[in-house]
Every structure is written in C-alpha cells, then in structure tokens.
C-alpha cells in the first residue's frame, strides 16, 4: 500500500483510538448521583443551582409564569441567562400567549 495511504489510515486510527480512550476514561468514572439524590430528597427542591440571579431562573420549574416576563407576557425579560433557560412548561396556569407555543 502507498506510504501516504498507510500514514493517513494510521492517523485516522490514532484519532479514533484517542476518542475511544477519552470516552472510555469518562465512562469508567460515572458520576455517583446518590449524594445529589439524597440532597434533593432533603431539600425537596427541583432544578440546578447554575443561574442564581433570579428566582425564576434558579427555581425555574416552580416559578410562576409571570416572573420571567416581569409584569406581564408583553414585557420581555432582561437577564442574559433567560435567553438560555426557557420559562417552565408546567401545564397549570399558563397565560394565553404561551398556550399557543405549547400546542405547536
């Protein structure tokens, strides 16, 4: 086989091996969710403590639907992270404008 072809396949093989080793290493140390589960059982609160600048971001699933829109659905919210985290899609008590979005 041509030397260049051999080199190429060697390179691709090395790349795939690197990817396999990477995923293998990560998969061999799976995250232990038990402490997190025990903590959630203790606090009883959903959602992650990632964006904590406002209550409707920190406790997104339990926020009332008007919070992300401040005073009403017409006024857009102002936190940068609220572009990342959508308002909760909890079915109960959804204002009319969002109903259309859920039914899409």
């Amino acid at each position, binding site marked *: 086989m041509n030397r260049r072809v051999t080199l190429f396949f060697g390179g691709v093989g090395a790349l795939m091996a690197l990817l396999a080793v990477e995923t293998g290493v990560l998969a061999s140390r799976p995250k232990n969710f038990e402490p997190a589960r025990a903590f959630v059982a203790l606090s009883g609160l959903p959602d992650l403590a*990632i964006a904590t600048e406002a209550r409707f971001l920190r406790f997104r699933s339990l926020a009332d639907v008007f919070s992300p829109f401040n005073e009403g659905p017409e006024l857009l919210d102002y936190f940068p992270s609220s572009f990342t985290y959508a308002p909760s899609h*909890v079915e109960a008590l959804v204002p009319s404008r969002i109903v259309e979005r859920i039914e899409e």
Partner: protein
Amino acid sequence: MNTHLFAFALSSLRRRGAKNLFIFVVFGVMVFLLASIFMIAHALKAEMAATLSSLPEITVQRIVAGRQSLIDASRAERIAEIFGVKEALPRVWGFYYFPRGGVNFSIVGVEGFGTQYKASLQKVADLFGEKLVADDTMVVGEGVYETMRKNFYRDYFLFVKPDGSLKKVTLVGRFKGETSLESNDVVVMENALVREIFGMDEGMATDIVVRVPNPKEVATVAKKIAEIYPDTRVVTKKDLRISYQNVFDYKSGIFLALFIVALFTFFIIIYDKTSGLSSEEKREIGILKALGWKIGDIMRVKFYEAAILSIVAYLLAMTLAVGYVFFLEAPLMRELFMGFSRLKPPFALPFTLDGGTLALIFFATVPIYIAATLIPSWKAATLEADEVIR
C-alpha cells in the same frame, strides 16, 4: 477501495492545501461548537433527570394575582386527608440577597435538625462536630461557604431580618462537592429560623409538598387539591419532567443564534462549492479524462477527497468537544449556561453522550458536504475532455 485512487485523492488535497485547510477548520469549528453545546445541554438534563426520583410527587403553591404568594400551612392538614396521600408538609424556603457578596442564597427550611435529619445530613454534608442539635445552626453549600469565608464569616453568619435587626446563625456543616450542582447556593436550617429571617408568620408557608406513594394516584390527588383550593397551582412530578425536557429554549434562545451562525457559515462553504469548480479544477478533470480516466474514476477520487476532509474534521471536532466539555469543564461556553450570577458551582457535568444528536450533526454536515463536492465534479466530468480543457 482503490488504494491508488485514494493516494491520488490525498495528494490532490495536499496540492490545494490552503483552501482545503480553511474548509477543514471551518467545518471542524462548526461541528465542535454544535457538539459542545448539545453535550452540555444533554449532560445538564441528565443531571436533573437523575434527581427527579427524589422529589416530592406534588408541590402546591398559592397564586394571588398571577404571582406566587404564601400559603396557609393549615391547608396541609386538609390535603393530608385526601385518600392516597401519605403526608403533606408545609415548606418554608426562599431567596436571601447578600449585598456584600452580590449573591442570592436559597434558604431552605427543614423540620428540625433532630436525629432523623442527622442521618440524612451526614450522607450529603461534612458536619463540623456535634454542634448540630444546638439552636440557630445551618448547613450550607460550597458556593455559600466560599462567599461567607471571603467576607470573613468563618463560624457564623449574620442574617439581616426584615426589621433591620441581625440574626446570628452558626455554621455547622457544608454540603459535599458531589452535590454542588444542586446545593451550591443552598442554606439549610430549621423552619422556625427561616420564618424568623424572612419575617413570616407562624401559620404561613412558602408551599406544601405532598407525598403520594402510588404513582397512578398522583393525577387524581392533584385534581382533588385543585378542586378543594382553586387558588392553587398544583405542580406534579410529571410537570417537572416536562419542564426539564424543555429547559433550553431552542426557539428563541442563544442556541438558535449559535446554530444559525454555524449553519450559515456552512452554507457559505456549500455555496462556494456548488457554484462551480475553479477553472484549474475543471482543467484537471479534463486532463484526467484525456489521459483515459473514466467518469467513475474521477467521481471516486472526488468522493474520497470530500469524505477524507469531512469525516476527519468531524472526528477531530468530536474528540476535542468531549475533552473540552468533560475534562476542561467547557471554559467560556459554560458562561452561557451560568448567566452573570456570581455564585457559580464547579461545572462538573455527568458524562453522557446523546447518540441521536451526534448522528444528527453527522448527517446534517458530512453527507451534504460530500454531495456538494460531487455534483459540480460530475457536471464537469460528463463534458467532453477537449471542451473542458479549452
């Protein structure tokens, strides 16, 4: 596979090195960006879904004028009488702003640091000695602990009550690092203490959590609660699951913006490719035909070229993305997910790979790129050799 044609394709890629390197880099960056974003989003969802089972089946909130407000704690007794309910507990929790640190703490109340809580607390927190049973104590998350230390609160913290007076609370424990994605901003203390700090009345609660052992009864119990108390919003675990599935707003969010930018870049490359080969490339095809190459041979070389470039770029981008997200904890990109809050947990995500999304990225990029290379080459290859060279 014809190794001679393959070697020719490799040489051909090298001959137009600068152009191919540019396409390789753009292709790779786009796949890397998309894969990283999707990996982070998927890992965060996995983290949330993993703890879903520990949550109470139903949360009851009172809504006044479209906003959540305090609920009468005695309603829990009426709810507990509903058939199928194991227990209904009024819960006290809320946000506390600490101006010096510029951060919000989530203060969560528990029934009391008695023996029953000590066992569960020991599982999730490092407790400092035996002070737990003493009055006015709290256990805090890592982020809160660091913030307090930075502001010279080592053993205790002074909370400002609504009337302006101070409440000294002793620090007796810190939640373990494994829980920091959930517990980073949390302060756990006794219900009475939370009420005192927030200035809440004895008979009031933030919401009521309801435990229903039989999952089939949850919907009926939720309906009954809503009928008894029409001013409440009843959030079930199923609602939370739906909410988790839609946590990232792909419709109007930053993801869409990134995705569109990446997609446009890609389409520009495709457009550049399909809008016709350069005269040099056309002449090359003509010369090959004049030398006796068949259309099939030319197409095969072009296919090899496109496949080598796109598949290697995809593989390299995936390798880098996995390392970037799970080993380096996604520097810069994690800021999208964390917002500008100062209380940031370490971004140690659980390792998950979503095969569907990775396949989607693959099929949205690699075959399209190969097709965009093959079609104009086929057009040139079907012309007569002298016509192309002339």
